[in-house]
């Protein structure tokens, strides 16, 4: 590993340390995601007024837009982690990249389905080959391509390397998705929430949207850490720290799952 990387990063990125760290962080991240998500849902579905144009149909925005943001955000993160894994060969970066893909694909899928359910009553169609919709579909295919490539190799590290390549190449699509509504005359409207300049949404609708955005970020941390923990265990299954965990689990739930094995061991003694 490059020597300019701070020591604590080096320490944290060792599989057993990260496994423990992720185990501590995960319940907190999930808790925050659930609390913030509940607040956002209450704000969006109950407190927020109906839209002047779309009535109550616009309420799909509170899950559609945060999911769309997550689809792009996770892709960016996956590409960065892929790059790090290819250049510095850090195992943890590889696991983060490969386990981000299914979560990103889930959010992109949600974006497409909720958008379709919103488009039918408002625009008058479930689907149209509009620049925003098409590039979002390409995003889903890129995610599926990364997942597929990762699993198509017998050697998983080789697969991860190939998938990381595709993830990096596919990053071109991220600005295309984001700017498609400006570059082409699309059926999909422009961005409602802007970082620079005023947003085109009233405050009582904006805060549930932003709260849900934060909630989905925490959800991502919770889901990713769970996936990374699972992967680290199976990648390092020969190592002592994993055997210790397996042993501890075995004695903890020997009553249920491990009973047969325990009995077998007893019989051999």
């Amino acid at each position: 590993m490059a020597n300019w990387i701070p020591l604590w990063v080096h320490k944290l990125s060792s599989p057993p340390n990260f496994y423990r760290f992720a185990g501590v962080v995960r319940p907190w991240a999930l808790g925050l995601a659930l609390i913030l998500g509940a607040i956002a849902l209450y704000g969006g579905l109950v407190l927020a007024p109906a839209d002047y144009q779309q009535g109550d149909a616009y309420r799909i925005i509170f899950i559609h837009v945060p999911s769309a943001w997550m689809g792009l955000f996770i892709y960016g993160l996956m590409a960065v982690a892929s790059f790090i894994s290819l250049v510095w060969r850090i195992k943890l970066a590889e696991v983060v990249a490969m386990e981000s893909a299914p979560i990103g694909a889930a959010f992109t899928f949600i974006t497409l389905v909720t958008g379709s359910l919103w488009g039918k009553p408002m625009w008058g169609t479930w689907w149209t080959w509009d620049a925003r919709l098409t590039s979002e579909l390409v995003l889903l295919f890129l995610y599926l391509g990364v997942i597929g490539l990762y699993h198509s190799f017998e050697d998983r590290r080789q697969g991860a390397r190939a998938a990381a390549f595709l993830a990096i190449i596919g990053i071109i699509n991220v600005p295309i998705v984001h700017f498609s509504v400006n570059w082409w005359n699309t059926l999909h409207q422009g961005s409602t929430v802007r970082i620079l300049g005023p947003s085109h949404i009233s405050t009582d609708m904006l805060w549930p949207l932003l709260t849900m955005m934060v909630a989905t970020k925490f959800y991502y941390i919770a889901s990713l850490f769970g996936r990374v923990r699972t992967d680290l265990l199976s990648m390092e299954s020969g190592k002592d720290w994993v055997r210790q965990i397996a042993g501890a689990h075995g004695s903890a739930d020997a009553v249920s799952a491990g009973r047969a094995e325990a009995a077998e061991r007893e019989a051999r003694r």
Partner: protein
Amino acid sequence: MSMNPTRKRRLTIVLLVVAAAVVAVGLIVFALQQNMNYLFTPSQVQTGQASSYKTFRLGGMVKAGSIQRSKDSLKVTFTVVDASGSMPVEYNGILPDLFRDNQSVIATGHMDSAHFMATEVLAKHDETYMPKELKDAMAKAHEGKQVNEEAGQDKPQ
């Protein structure tokens, strides 16, 4: 980097996947570019820019008061306008909920003499979301402002 057969095969796979991805993205961008060109405003149609297309998309705003619905069928006629042109449209089908006066629409269809015969009508909305009360208040404030400005212009300097 040594090139044993397995490594060579893997490298080929990776390169093929990358090439396929690039070609796919390129094709999609190209297709979109083409697709977007099919969209014409009424004034563009009137100046003959759409004449080379049998089917194309007409984009513009529904002229206020131009919507006429048939009493015994789904047939509807309306006029789509842009800054300097207008085009009568005929459509037989279910319209989106947002279809109404002064709404942006995109209609797909073909010309039949001076009429545009639509096979699909989609409503386009802007990126603004606000409660109805706020919209009304803003419309009122806007009117008030205009009145004030006009009044101000009349005032002796």
